[in-house]
């Protein structure tokens, strides 16, 4: 069962367990309506996110990737989100070099109590991806090449 053709795009979220996953839960508890495109992958900490995950996700066919962690200085593991910020900022600059529109990837911070903020983040990002439309597929040798380049760069 793929995404709903014509209705949804493929958006993948990487959320840290302590803040943003909780924030998404809080949004649910508050019944804050959101678009249905996003699929969430839970990780313990935004510092667990290897930028290559995001590249691989985009190469695998995702139209957008959203990362969300705890606010700076608020990390459950004290400094994980600082590592995340550094790595993801780098990644954002590299994406265009790889032929991927940098707007297809965003990272942000949402705390466990910020249900409303989560709703806004998801809604905005989903709109942004819909404006860009489906991502051009990078396949075969080209994809391998991109991946290699990224692996060397990041």
């Amino acid at each position, binding site marked *: 069962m793929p995404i709903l053709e014509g209705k949804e795009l493929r958006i993948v979220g990487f959320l840290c367990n302590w803040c943003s996953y909780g924030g998404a839960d809080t949004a*649910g508890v508050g019944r804050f309506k959101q678009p249905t495109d996003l699929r969430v992958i839970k990780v313990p900490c935004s510092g667990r996110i290897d930028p290559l995950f995001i590249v691989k996700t985009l190469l695998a066919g995702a139209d957008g990737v959203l990362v969300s962690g705890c606010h700076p200085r608020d990390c459950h593991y004290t400094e994980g989100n600082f590592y995340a910020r550094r790595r993801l900022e780098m990644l954002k600059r590299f994406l265009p070099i790889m032929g991927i529109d940098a707007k297809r990837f965003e990272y942000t911070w949402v705390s466990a109590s910020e249900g409303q903020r989560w709703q806004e983040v998801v809604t905005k990002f989903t709109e942004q991806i819909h404006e860009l439309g489906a991502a051009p597929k990078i396949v075969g040798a080209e994809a391998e090449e991109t991946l290699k380049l990224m692996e060397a760069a990041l």
Partner: protein
Amino acid sequence: MKIGVFVCHCGTNIEGTVDTAAVAAASREFPGVVFATDTMYACSEPGQDGIIEAIKEHKLDGVVVASCTPRMHEPTFRRTLERAGLNRYLFEMANIREHVSWIGKDREANTNKSADLVRMAAAKLLKNRPLFSKQFPVNKSVMVVGGGVAGIQAALDCANGGLKVVLVEKDTTIGGKMAKLDKTFPTVDCSSCVLGPLMVDVAQHPNINLHAYSEIEEVNGYVGNFEIKVKKKASYVDWDACTGCGLCVEKCPSRKATDFFNEKLATTKAINIPFPQAIPKKAKIDPDFCMKIQKDKCGVCAKVCPSEAIDFTQKDEFITENVGAVVAATGFDLFDWTVYGQYGGGKYPDVITSLQYERMLSASGPSEGHIKRPSDGKEPKNVVFIQCVGSRDKSVGRPYCSGFCCMYTAKQTILTKDHIPDSQSHVFYMDIRSPGKLYDEFTRRAMEEYGANYIRGRVSMIYPKGDNLVVRGADTLMGAQVEIDADLVVLAVGAEASVGATDLAKKLRISYDAYGFFMEGHPKLKPVETNTAGVYLAGACQGPKDIPASVAQGSAAASKVLGLFSQDMLASDPQVSVVDIKRCIGCGKCIQTCPFGAIKEIDFRGMKKADVIETICQGCGICTSTCPQGAVQLQHFTDNQILAEVNAICRF
């Protein structure tokens, strides 16, 4: 692996907007899935029994439950698996309630998305491995940080339960705000008569070791085995020798020291004991005002002290305490109201805070229980109270309700009438919030029996007129502007997180909200737990709370600690990182990035390698995304497991 999928209706919570039977049907097509069904309430007893039966009948060795958030019931279902003889980590959850059914009503899209989430969960599960906890011993002693009424209650309950307690208080005495209060609502009984005996119990309890005038410097370790460095701040008095006789205070010629206990209503001596019932009752020198320390003159206290306790050269001292659990009970502080220019911003001496008023009312306060206004010492007749100063006000960044101000303002109007029978109190309020037992009756008494004049509306400005102040505000019920001549204005200043709360939170690795109040583990089900195992909360540090609620939380936190310590051994979380020694090239990058110092360098047949110390690793996975070789992998969140989820949704 043979996976079974259980799609929960959650009554109508999920079924209302998700076709759970269709999700189950779709799941049967996913790799590894041999059984799938929908179920009414997966978490209920019949629901769990159904899972166990299916595991046995279909010889399942992996389970996916699609239901609510794993933050809610993951532990529940892991136990279910264990009861069926499966390892608890051969389990995944798909969150189709908070992340699907509750955030939109499009049944088709929701059903489709739910199936996707199950597909991801099943794909990850295929890569899961059984993980096993290790047992480790528990140090059955507890540290309570903060000696307000909440911390005192927690400390006494733990100590009475047989635990060794280390109580750390940053001031020279315990008691917190309650020690400064005159009388307390809704009974109007004297605060120190209630609190005093508890404080004495703390001092005398054989199981309690009190470090006053001390703060937490550093926290290491984990549940069951914390190692905490405590800073004992220099008081310039040897407290082992000091008997609290007060001779030094009497003789000290330096009279201008800031009197924090009396909320700066008066000044005090450079060497001081905050109040007669202080626990511990020990003197402390304020170095900023001590003539010996500042100018090397005087030294009178050292001469008069019968126990030779004065030590002008004393330095901060650091000690280490080993405990198995921590209760944070650091309370609150008052909002800095001087940001309100319309109330004079601190210019008018006769505009004071509610806590200053408590000191004024208190028989042990600087005016010995006589209400005297600061400007000229006259007894006020017209007292205006303004509520919600720094509460429920977005413009100053304090949108929340401080909870107890309505009640203490009513109390203060009653006490005003008791002290000055021919006085009149006026209260500007937004709403009266008094939902506790006997609380609404109490505020009504203030109005009806004690004649307090309640005016619903905000104050727009206070300005001086002669010796007095004029308070101008709106009466929104009458739709009129009112001006009241006031001899004294008392601001019901809101509560905010205590100074240094966020620093402490970082040391304890607990979360705090946008205002610095500590976050509980779950707003309903884990009110005194935190998301850090072994760290608990009590009192106003978690959010504004009155005394009954603070005491209840103190006891609740203590019962959690006693529960934790009813086991001799704790099980470690096996979701930790492990190093594949063959892949590790000994670059040391993980050692540098681990925030907990959980990775050490080892020598393996003459080669440098990394090794994770299991008991210290917190499972963040920062090392895993740092390692250039993929050699260190966080178990249960390995690269392969995360990428399996990615591939399940992107490539199908």
